[in-house]
């Protein structure tokens, strides 16, 4: 707590009754929440209207796949692709927990089959296909289901000429499916190569975090790569790099801003501007008219 708004409270309250940090749950869950960056107490409904961007400091909070799609697509004419594709446990993988159990838990917690949701829909009436990662499902890791659903999304785009937009949020390939997960990198990249040959645009939006095998395949292959502000994006994790090179990593290493500076992404776009910005790019690439001001105002 060091914000200006709180400082007068700290001055008049004896230190014993002040609660430091966020361990005490005096606020009923769901109605209010606290910004993890600036600690501002936020009204949940307002936060949702603001696409889960903190109105005080601009922190982009994590969205799950459905929230992401809700923020991005027009409300009408949505059709989900590959909703029934579900994971198996081909290796009978077990570490401290069985993969089967981890999957069951993640499915129960998220209500999703796996870490990717694919939706055909419209963006200001333009037909598009959206692939959105669910970081809350096993760290958004890519196994057989994520790869397959992504490819089905690309196939849908191929059959109706719709651009593809992917929102990545992933720790990388899913270890529990072993080499099958690695092969999803080449599978998804091959599908994107086909999309490119057909002249259909692909926009990759990299959100916090996009790492490992997902960064090193579908997420870095956008015709235009867009990052959300302050996302962590990279191939190797910062801890692994620090252990390898045995030196301190530079300030801001692997953030969106670092990637923009080094030329890895085309732009950093505030989530609240994404719909219009992506439409602007796609309408130019596909030689369609720009949005009218009244359409844009409705966004």
């Amino acid at each position: 707590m060091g914000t200006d708004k709180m400082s007068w409270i700290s001055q008049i309250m004896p230190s014993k009754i002040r609660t430091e940090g966020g361990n005490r749950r005096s606020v009923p869950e769901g109605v209010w929440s606290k910004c993890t960056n600036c600690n501002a107490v936020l009204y949940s409904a307002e936060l949702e209207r603001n696409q889960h961007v903190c109105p005080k400091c601009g922190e982009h909070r994590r969205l799950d796949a459905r929230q992401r799609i809700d923020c991005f697509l027009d409300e009408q004419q949505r059709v989900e692709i590959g909703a029934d594709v579900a994971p198996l446990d081909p290796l009978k993988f077990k570490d401290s927990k069985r993969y089967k159990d981890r999957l069951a838990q993640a499915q129960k917690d998220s209500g999703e089959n796996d870490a990717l949701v694919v939706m055909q829909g419209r963006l200001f009436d333009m037909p598009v296909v959206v692939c959105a990662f669910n970081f809350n499902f096993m760290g958004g890791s890519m196994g057989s289901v994520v790869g397959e659903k992504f490819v089905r999304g690309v196939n849908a785009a191929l059959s109706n000429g719709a651009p593809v937009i992917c929102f990545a949020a992933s720790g990388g390939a899913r270890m529990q499916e072993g080499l099958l997960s690695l092969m999803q990198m080449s599978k998804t990249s091959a599908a994107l190569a086909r999309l490119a040959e057909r002249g259909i645009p692909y926009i990759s939006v990299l959100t916090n975090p996009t790492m490992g095998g997902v960064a090193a395949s579908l997420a870095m292959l956008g015709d235009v790569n867009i990052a959300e502000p302050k996302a962590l994006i990279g191939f190797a994790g910062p801890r692994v790099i620090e252990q390898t090179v045995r030196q301190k990593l530079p300030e801001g290493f692997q953030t969106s801003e670092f990637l923009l500076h080094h030329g890895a992404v085309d732009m950093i776009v505030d989530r609240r501007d994404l719909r219009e910005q992506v439409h602007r790019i796609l309408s130019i690439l596909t030689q369609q008219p720009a949005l009218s001001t009244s359409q844009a105002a409705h966004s």
Partner: protein
Amino acid sequence: MNLDYLDFEQPIAELQQKIEELRHVATGSEVNLSEEIGRLESKSRSLTEDIFGKLTSWQVAQVARHPRRPYTLDYIEAIFTDFTELHGDRAFRDDPAIVGGLARLDGRAVMVIGQQKGRDTKDKLHRNFGMPKPEGYRKALRLMKLAERFRVPIITFIDTPGAYPGIGAEERNQSEAIARNLFELARLRTPVISVVIGEGGSGGALAIGVADHLAMLQYSIYSVISPEGCASILYRSAEKAAEAADAMGVTSSRIYELGLIDEIIPEPLGGAHRDPQATANNIRSRLLSNLERLSQVSGNKLVEARYDRLMRHGRFKE
């Protein structure tokens, strides 16, 4: 302790030492020890067969990383003629962790590319332990595109712990370098044959391994993350690497069962380093027959078939 032999091979090492000692004695004396030596040699062979007949995944990983194991340049030397190394990505630097160049295989034109590890300390550092940086992958891509232009088939040798996790590598976009290779390899109109000869370390291996024919040497490994990396994340201790190796199924036989490789190329008893020439001969004959087969296929058909292969990868239900 003999460093030529791995921990679990020490019983073999002891027998071999006895055999050496007897040979030494035999040269200087009248006593005929050949019968005894012969007996010990056959014992050593059956002991080796026994040990190698039931290697754990972790033991296979150790053979795959054996300091004497032949590396890419050793196989290039043993298998090809007229090897002409080509350097650099034309943008930043030459990466010694990936070698590549034109060569002939039984007279046929080929492009050979592979990760290269170092043998002694100085060489290891020079080769960055076989861990390529973005410029390495971009060099590989340049050579692949060059090969495609003249419809020269591509042969890649995979042997890397993984792509290099460093500051400069991230600054130059390691992710994009790997992703771009996967993207371009998927539509390359010339045959690609890949052989995992040692360690197939994750995306850093795959970036030169999207192929029309993918083979693994018997005691090589191929994995989505190193056993140590998996252990430190999922088991919270790098010491559990043996368990992780087994759980992930990193050996050629497990990966063959999953249908992700086309064949396993056999190694001599005790591993490739016990007889590099024999191993090279095995690789060579498999390269030749697959090259023969793939050379007959048109560019379009190749790309079509490669695409179908890639799309089949995955296990799910619906």
